[in-house]
């Protein structure tokens, strides 16, 4: 029988790329994605023995990763707010030096447009963001997304529709801004 350590190592080698890339789509830079990936596997290690196999392990891993990413973003945003209103701290310099968009998976010719897209995605609500990333960027089907998000398929469809509409509106505003600058 497989020990806890062996099963953890097996899960790590099988899903490390999936977790790291999904984290990259949310946090859009390699350093933060690595931190989130570490948190995901630590959480997984703590609860691997509790995994009841009611859903597939892939769905379970997606769910943990999405939750860790959303928590990380919330924490980072609250830190940013603290730096604006609170006292100055050494960490502030580190934060200022971190690149906001450095997604190593994007091909060079799409870098600029992808930067605009991910900036718009970051302004979506949590559910819309998750539905859009899982569907458009990760390429999951609506049924898989509904299992990850624990929602009905019709709710996922509605979230995707609203996410796309919101993105189109935001991008239209961006286009007007660019045109005025030219």
């Amino acid at each position, binding site marked *: 029988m497989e020990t806890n350590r062996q099963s953890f190592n097996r899960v790590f080698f099988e899903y490390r*790329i999936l977790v*790291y*890339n999904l984290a990259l789509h949310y946090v859009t830079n390699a350093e933060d994605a690595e931190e989130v990936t*570490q948190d995901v596997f630590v959480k997984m290690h703590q609860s691997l023995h509790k995994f009841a196999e009611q859903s597939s392990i892939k769905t379970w891993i997606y769910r943990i990763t999405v939750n860790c990413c959303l928590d990380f973003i919330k924490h980072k945003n609250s830190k940013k707010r603290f730096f604006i209103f609170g006292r100055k701290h050494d960490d502030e310099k580190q934060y200022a030096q971190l690149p906001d968009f450095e997604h*190593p*998976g994007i091909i060079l010719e*799409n870098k600029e447009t*992808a930067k605009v897209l991910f900036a*718009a995605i970051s302004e979506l609500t949590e559910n819309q963001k998750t539905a859009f990333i899982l569907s458009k960027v990760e390429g999951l089907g609506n049924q898989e997304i509904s299992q990850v998000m624990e929602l009905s398929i019709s709710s996922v469809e509605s979230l995707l529709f609203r996410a796309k509409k919101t993105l189109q509106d935001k991008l239209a505003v961006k*286009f007007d801004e660019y045109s005025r600058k030219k």
Partner: protein
Amino acid sequence: MEKDKWIEEVLNSTNGMLKVAPPDTLRDAIHVKISDRAGVPIRVILAAAVSLAILGFINFSIVRHLDVPVKSNPLQEVAFGRTNQLY
């Protein structure tokens, strides 16, 4: 229309995205975090909590058994009348 074309181009900018492998140091970093979190076993925490509770109980019972009546100070009784007026 130029605007719609641009929006579509931006929305499709994730096409052809490459899968990126995480750094090789990731596994070691995870194991360090796991061992850090497993630093204090739950039994030690429980033993400390039980010891504190026993100590508190002993203190409380000793104080209750040594309940000595407070002696009144006769000087105070002379100085202050019933109305607490000083003159």
